[in-house]
Each structure stands twice: as C-alpha cells, then as structure tokens.
C-alpha cells in the first residue's frame, strides 16, 4: 500500500469509528467514574442523594458550555447526528492540531 493511501485509510477508519461506531458505545460509567461513584446513592437526575464516595466534591467542567461539550454538537437535537458529527470534528481537529504541532517540532537536520 502506498504511504499516501495508508494515511487516507487510517484517517477513514478513525472517522468511521468516531462518526458511526461511537453511537453504539456503552453509556455506562467507565472504570474510574464507577469507582468514584461507589458508596453514594444517586437520584434520577444523577445527583448524589447520600453516602460517601470520591465523587462527592466533584465539580462541573469549566468549559461545560462549549459547543462540543460532552461529545455532542450544541443545537443538533438528533443524538446520533450530534455524537457522530462531534466525533468526526474531534478526529479532524486532533489530526490537524497534533499533526501541526508535530510538524512544527519536526527534526530539521538529518540524523
């Protein structure tokens, strides 16, 4: 496989995973979150109602109101579309920001 096609194929796989497969991901709390919630009881709105757990003093995110917060696009009501487009945006942004920074930091002289 030519190198150029390898980049395209890799990016395409990442876009499909983040844009489509992400909608089938488990929505259960992850390992850390589950451990942090252990010992507390929660109501239907996910607020702590009693007990002691690591998450008791947890605070909201400073940037919780950002347009891509929580892997959705603000203003898009369809949850599949919202998650999928946020995932596609995330992959492209990470590729651009990461690739850009690595390009700036690249080796200038032959080793």
């Amino acid at each position, binding site marked *: 496989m030519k190198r150029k096609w390898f980049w395209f194929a890799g990016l395409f796989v990442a876009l499909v995973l983040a844009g489509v497969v992400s909608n089938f991901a488990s929505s259960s709390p992850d390992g850390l979150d589950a451990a942090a919630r252990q010992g507390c009881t929660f109501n239907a709105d996910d607020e702590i109602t009693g007990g002691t757990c690591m998450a008791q003093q947890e605070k909201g995110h400073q940037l919780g109101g950002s347009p891509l917060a*929580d892997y959705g696009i603000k203003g898009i009501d369809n949850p599949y579309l919202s998650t999928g487009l946020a995932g596609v945006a*995330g992959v492209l942004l990470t590729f651009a920001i990461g690739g850009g920074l690595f390009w700036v930091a*690249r080796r200038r002289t032959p080793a």
Partner: protein
Amino acid sequence: MNVQAMHIANGIVNGPVSAIFAVFAVAALAYCVRRGRADLDERLVPMAGLVAAFIFAVQMLNFQVLPGVSGHLLGGTLAVILVGPWVGALCVSTVLIVQCLLFADGGLTALGLNITNMALLGTAAGYLLVAGLLRVLPKNPGGLGASALIASIVSVVVASQGFVLEYALGGTTQLSLPAISGTMAGVHILIGIGEGLIAATTVATVARVRPDLVYALRRFRKPAVLPVEVAA
C-alpha cells in the same frame, strides 16, 4: 447520548496536588518534545498525527466490562509501538488536551493529573514492557500483537494506580485507599484486556500492511549491541 471517558473530573483531587502534577506534566512533556524531535522525520510526523486522531476516535468507544461499568482504550501502548515512547506520550497528551479544552472531558484543573496517568505513566509502562517483550518475541505481526496485548493490560493498571497515588496525596474525600486501589486495579485489568485486543489488532494490521511505519520494528534496538559501538 452520553459518551463517557476515563478522565478525572474537577474536584476529586484538591487544587494544590493538581497544580503540582500540572507542573510535573508540563516539564515531562517539554522533555518528551526534546527527545521526540530526533524521531520526528517526514515519515513520523503524519503517522503521529494519525495515531493521535485514531486514539481520539477509539477513546469514544466505551465497551462494557461489568454490569453498569464500561471502559475505553487509553492508547499509551498502541502509541508507543507505532511512534515510539517520546512522540507516543505527546500523541496521548494531544488527545487529552483536545478532549479537555474542546469536549469538556476531564477537568481543566485535573488535566495535569490525567496527562500524568494516561500519557506519561501509561506510555512509560507500555514502552518498557514492549521493549522487553520484543527481545524474546518474534518481531513480526504476531509477536507485535502479543506484546501489545500484554503491555496494554499492565499499562492500563499502572495508569489506574497513578490515580490512586494522586487521590492518596490530595483526595477531597476520606476513603479507604486499599479499597480504592483494589477496585481500580480489578476493573482496569478488564479494561486493559479490551484495550489490549484493540491495540494488538491495530498494530498487527499496520505491521502487515506497512511494517516500515511501525516504530517498534525499526527503532527498538537490543541494548546488547550498544557496548560494541561504545567500545569502538
């Protein structure tokens, strides 16, 4: 749909300890940039960008490990195998920074803690194991996949214990540390197996298609050859 990620939220570890780890993370990343530059040639730059983007994508894919508990890949071992230890740590950090600043995932105050656990501890453990395992396992897609599986499990558990250390130093609640350590290790062994299967499939695929793009197959030298060069 609520996509969760395994990142420390604000307020679980106190401000001073979070600040200390933020300073540590910045210093360590600066060192990674210095060391990583030597690796960043015209072949590795796009590969590193792709690895970061791929880790971002796979981190969205939470898989069920227990009833009511999920997990996702952290990516340290995968990154180390494909782009090396220094650039690998920078790839995972890039993902964590993008997630924190743009997706409100992982507290801003906790960014140094999350970088320390997932981008530094996780990649360091993954690198040491893969480098060691590839001295005995064959340097082919199979050996690489097996290394990725084993190293991923250990790497994820090490990252989870990084959190336990940070919580021990600055937890905002008083809970039993051995209990937390045990809970975190137990669930992260399961998450590590999931991560290992994803990482093994990915690196074995790349090794089959373009083995020249796999850092671990080109650059991890056996230390045994070094003394000869030093003596000469």
